[in-house]
């Protein structure tokens, strides 16, 4: 890219929309570590369009399929889930030289760091209704009728668990720099105790957790973010990830810093029309921690391979990985009792 990102965006959007476009207020924003994310306004004639561009970085937390991310947004925007409107997807990069997509920007909301204490009080309970209710509605959607089904493979119900476990165990095989006996033990347990087939095939957001949404500060979600790991699979996968102790904001009673675990499951069941089988869910809870550790192990490798440039990769591969080991060891203790 010979000029600035602003110039490249103006050139691309001007060509795509067939009229001159000016770019104002371009600024990178934190979060969505698998993509470089920028906010900007596109000025088209007298109209100001608030937009987000998400571009592939040279290195990232994990390789993800940008088509699934784009089509997941398309599947839920305007359909009872606060998914931002996706606008254009460029797999070849065009003027921006790396693959990217552009979506409408949702202004006025706040995100929470996964490590900040009690980020949602005093609206945590109300937000929990929206958070787990939204996840239930995602789980309930008929995948065959959604745009994401055009680009994401649909596994057999009995193979959802194995496809995910094979993938993330493979990431650890490839990226592990130091032997990791705790997550290895968890992986072996998961293979020895497969869960029952999925109740239905659902869209799995893939990173649905506290911190990955914008909220209005009064208990309402304005936008569900970071769909880059979206795929089709078992609806319990997202619930297990959302309830992982890593995202509990140092609390023991409430999950995701919002509501007690039993209440979260009740809300999800009511919204999805599905049931949480405790034995199956125990499998998906352990799997969530294995998947997390795979991402953190991959982050550590990427941090080294990319020349130690991105501090978020260091933080994830170091601090978060150690916390995940604690969580995994606690899971294994319960399962060994």
């Amino acid at each position, binding site marked *: 890219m010979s000029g600035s990102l602003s110039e490249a965006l103006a050139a691309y959007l001007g060509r795509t929309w067939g009229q001159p476009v000016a770019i104002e207020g371009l600024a990178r924003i934190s979060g969505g570590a698998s993509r470089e994310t920028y906010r900007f306004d596109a000025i088209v004639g007298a109209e100001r369009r608030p937009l987000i561009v998400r571009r592939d970085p040279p290195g990232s937390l994990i390789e993800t399929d940008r088509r699934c991310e784009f089509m997941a947004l398309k599947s839920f925007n305007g359909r009872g889930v606060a998914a931002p409107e996706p606008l254009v997807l460029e797999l070849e990069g065009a003027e921006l030289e790396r693959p990217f997509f552009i979506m409408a920007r949702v202004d006025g909301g706040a995100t929470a760091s996964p490590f900040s204490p009690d980020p949602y009080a005093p609206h945590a309970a109300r937000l929990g209704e929206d958070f787990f209710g939204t996840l239930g509605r995602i789980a309930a959607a008929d995948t065959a009728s959604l745009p994401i089904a055009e680009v994401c493979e649909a596994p057999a119900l009995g193979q959802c668990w194995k496809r995910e476990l094979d993938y993330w165990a493979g990431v650890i095989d490839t990226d592990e720099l130091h032997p990791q006996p705790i997550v290895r033990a968890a992986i072996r347990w998961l293979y020895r105790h497969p869960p029952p087939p999925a109740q239905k095939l659902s869209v799995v957001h893939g990173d649905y957790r506290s911190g990955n949404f914008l909220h209005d500060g009064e208990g309402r979600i304005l936008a569900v973010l970071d769909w880059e790991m979206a795929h089709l699979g078992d609806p319990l996968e997202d619930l297990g990830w959302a309830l992982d*102790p890593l995202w509990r904001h140092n609390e023991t009673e409430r999950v995701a810093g919002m509501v007690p675990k039993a209440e979260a499951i009740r809300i999800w069941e009511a919204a999805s029309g599905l049931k949480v089988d405790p034995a199956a869910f125990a499998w998906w809870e352990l799997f969530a921690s294995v998947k997390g550790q795979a991402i953190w192990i991959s982050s550590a490798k990427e941090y080294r391979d990319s020349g130690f440039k991105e501090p978020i990769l260091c933080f994830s591969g170091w601090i978060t990985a150690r916390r995940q080991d604690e969580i995994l060891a606690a899971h294994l203790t319960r399962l060994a009792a």
Partner: protein
Amino acid sequence: MTPNVRDVLQGVAVALATPPSADAGMAYTAARLGMVGSLAMMAAAEADRAARDAALENAEIRALFAEAGAYDADGALAAAAKETDPDLSVPALDASNARLRRLLIGLHEKVETADDAAMNRRIVALYVTMAQIRRMGLGGG
């Protein structure tokens, strides 16, 4: 462990020496610098404890190997249990730790194959201890 203190501080140096992108904006650049500063602070804490943590973990693993004679046909575990760490530099301790962890993974696989619930609990208890030794005090509850 990865990344180790050397990796973290190397990253801090690279991040500080790299000019911010003109497209990034002040808020992002400031947040990134804040994270770099936090990493430097945590690296300072880690530098104080990295050798101790690795030595402690190695000792805990060796203690378990001394109890695992039933799974030690080739004597590798008994030999490892008798080893010490004469070189207390972090790279040497980490290398020793990697060897011990590989043996531990192999031992646990044998215990699972034998369906030995008592030894399995002993190994899982060691995992809890290992995670506590490395704990850094951030994250969920």
